[in-house]
């Protein structure tokens, strides 16, 4: 049994890492908004999905104009991801303007903001489905294959207790791009003025506004960055898995939120860690649960596994693995 698990480990790590970095970047979107507004932005998963679709549209447009064959793939990819990121960033700012800012002005209870975000997520899902279905008659969209060169890691000859692992060049692309995004974000938040303003608003909105910080603008910038990251990840997802539909955002959004909670919500580095860890755990569960339980529980239980981890973390360490415990002010 153990031998089986170990043999498979390199492949599980690679697949888990791919899924994990996707979770990580989406989780950052949740964590940034939560840190600053104390709001679970349910619509964030669907912003991710919209990014994937915008990417697909741009890709098809470029293909239609013949650019896909003419330009090197990496250039096409950069064009697609930049356009998608900007578009979803603006979408995020728009959502904040339309749905959250009026509520903030009214000082409405948090519950209400949560409900609007569920509403927004429904609207996004259905609009995208509508457009896709109108165009193609089927809302499942398959992107043209890109970066599908196959690599084999020949581990078996060096370390005989491992099986060989395979991956595609898209895996490298996903990994490199997300790492660039994560480092850039970390620098932005910790080293720039805007980042400092963001941290200040997250800590205490009223005091920050007294320190001549334009709170509304900081919130807009936060939404822009969070959503742009989400949208860019959508494009990565599309390239890695090839097929997208309007409902990918929901389940992925919940998992990413789980990751954010795991790492301590409001904590950006925590979200990165939580995402990668959740991806690895999930992949490990999917490929090994039935071996461990001798067939009593199969891969279909992996989501149960993820949710139970979430509940356990919330019960025993509500501040997350990296978060700081908050003392409630009365």
């Amino acid at each position: 049994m153990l031998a089986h698990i170990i043999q498979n480990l390199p492949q599980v790590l690679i697949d888990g890492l791919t899924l994990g970095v996707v979770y990580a970047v989406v989780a950052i979107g949740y964590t940034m908004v939560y840190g600053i507004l104390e709001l679970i932005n349910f619509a964030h998963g669907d912003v991710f999905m919209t990014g994937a679709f915008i990417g697909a549209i741009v890709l098809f447009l470029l293909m239609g104009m013949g650019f896909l064959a003419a330009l090197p793939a990496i250039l096409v990819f950069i064009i697609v991801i930049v356009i998608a990121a900007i578009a979803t960033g603006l979408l995020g700012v728009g959502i904040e303007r339309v749905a959250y800012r009026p509520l903030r002005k009214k000082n409405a209870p948090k519950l209400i903001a949560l409900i609007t975000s569920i509403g927004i997520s429904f609207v996004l899902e259905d609009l995208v489905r509508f457009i896709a279905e109108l165009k193609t008659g089927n809302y499942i969209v398959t992107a043209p294959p890109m970066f599908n060169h196959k690599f084999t890691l020949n581990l078996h000859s060096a370390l005989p207790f491992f099986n060989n692992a395979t991956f595609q060049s898209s895996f490298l692309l996903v990994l490199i791009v997300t790492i660039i995004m994560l480092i850039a974000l970390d620098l932005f938040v910790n080293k720039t003025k805007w980042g400092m303003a963001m941290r200040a608003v997250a800590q205490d909105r009223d005091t920050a506004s007294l320190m001549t910080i334009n709170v509304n603008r900081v919130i807009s910038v936060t939404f822009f960055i969070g959503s742009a990251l989400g949208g860019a990840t959508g494009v990565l997802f599309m390239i890695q898995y090839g097929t997208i539909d309007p409902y990918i955002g929901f389940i992925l959004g919940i998992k990413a939120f789980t990751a954010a909670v795991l790492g301590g919500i409001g904590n950006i580095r925590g979200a990165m860690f939580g995402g990668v860890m959740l991806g690895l755990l999930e992949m490990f569960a999917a490929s090994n649960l039935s071996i461990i339980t001798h067939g009593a529980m199969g891969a279909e239980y992996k989501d149960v596994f993820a949710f139970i981890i979430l509940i356990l973390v919330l019960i025993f360490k509500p501040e997350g693995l990296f978060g700081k415990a908050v003392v409630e002010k009365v």
Partner: protein
Amino acid sequence: MKLKRVVPLLAIIALLIGALAACSPKSGGSNGKTVIEIGSQSPLSGGSATLGDAIRLGAKLAIEDRQKEFEKKGFQIKLKDLDDQGDPKKGVANAQILASDKDVLAVVGHLNSGVAIPSSEVYNKNNLAMVSPATTATVVTDRKLPTVNRICARDDFQGPAGANFAVKTLKAKKIFVIQDKTAYGSGLAEQFRDQAKKLGAEIVGYEGITVGEKDFNGVLSQAVAKKPDLIYFGGVYAEGGLIIKQARQKGFDGPIMGGDGLDSSSTVQIAGDSVKGVYLTSVAGDVSKTEKGQAFAKKYKKEFGKNVESYSAYGYDAAGVILDGLMKAIDGNDGKKPTREQVTKAIRSVQNYDGVTTKVSLDDKGDNKFAKVYIYNFTEAKYPPVQKAEISQ
């Protein structure tokens, strides 16, 4: 008072509803012919919309083709197509709508067994005959309801037929089975697994996946590590296509096999080149094999601007069986509009109907005695695949 607020509200609602009423006239028969409606229920939205729409269009074509015969007798046939969304609750609600419409005398539907089972309880209560082009679960007809019929093969025929082919023809000794945890997918995969075991193959794994996800690498790396001769997938194309693609990326070069849920052009679209070497069992025959079928495909393309899917012809034939039964019932009722009971009986007694893909003779359970299972192979990334074998009961 509060009434002040209610009155405008009431007025607005009344206006709205009035507007609605004005634009929903009860469709009367044009040029004095008696209207008979045939219902159709299939998923027109959702993950299996490609298959559901094919059924609807097939049925539509069948009705158009035979409109003349009925017009001679003073009837006009209309299709009342509803979207069951692949959701049992929606199916039941639609079934109520069809049952309460007096003009509806029979129903073509459904695609999913999970929807057909509860909906058929409603049809049966209302004596409304149903002919299914595609529901393969054994329970559907095993309840022996007089109104429930199907023209396709059952899971306990399709699954084992696939297993026979996999073990005997493809010589698979170790098989890994994946299913999508839906009524359709797990029903089929179980039948396949049991037969394969009986034939002496070793089932090295039996795993479930979640519908709607895109990453199946976890299950697949477990599958590939066990080095099976064949991977079997019970489920629909949306996940099937991705499983095929990701298995190939993992370096699995052996045959992958699936059921009729993969029998769609979308499988090729999603899986791309990886689809080569995929086998599938289908209850729908290849229309391009016969002259009749080719003519049908041509007409279908001309009418709707789409290529035929596997279930297009089955939708056509299911409607055809209904129309045959209807004609018999009309003749038996001295050319007057028959009752639902008469239509139900007439449909059940249909024998030797010769359709575009299949002959139909219904037995006392409502199963088709001539139902066949076909085995296809994708030799290149193109739909439809090549037919390899044809198995009768």
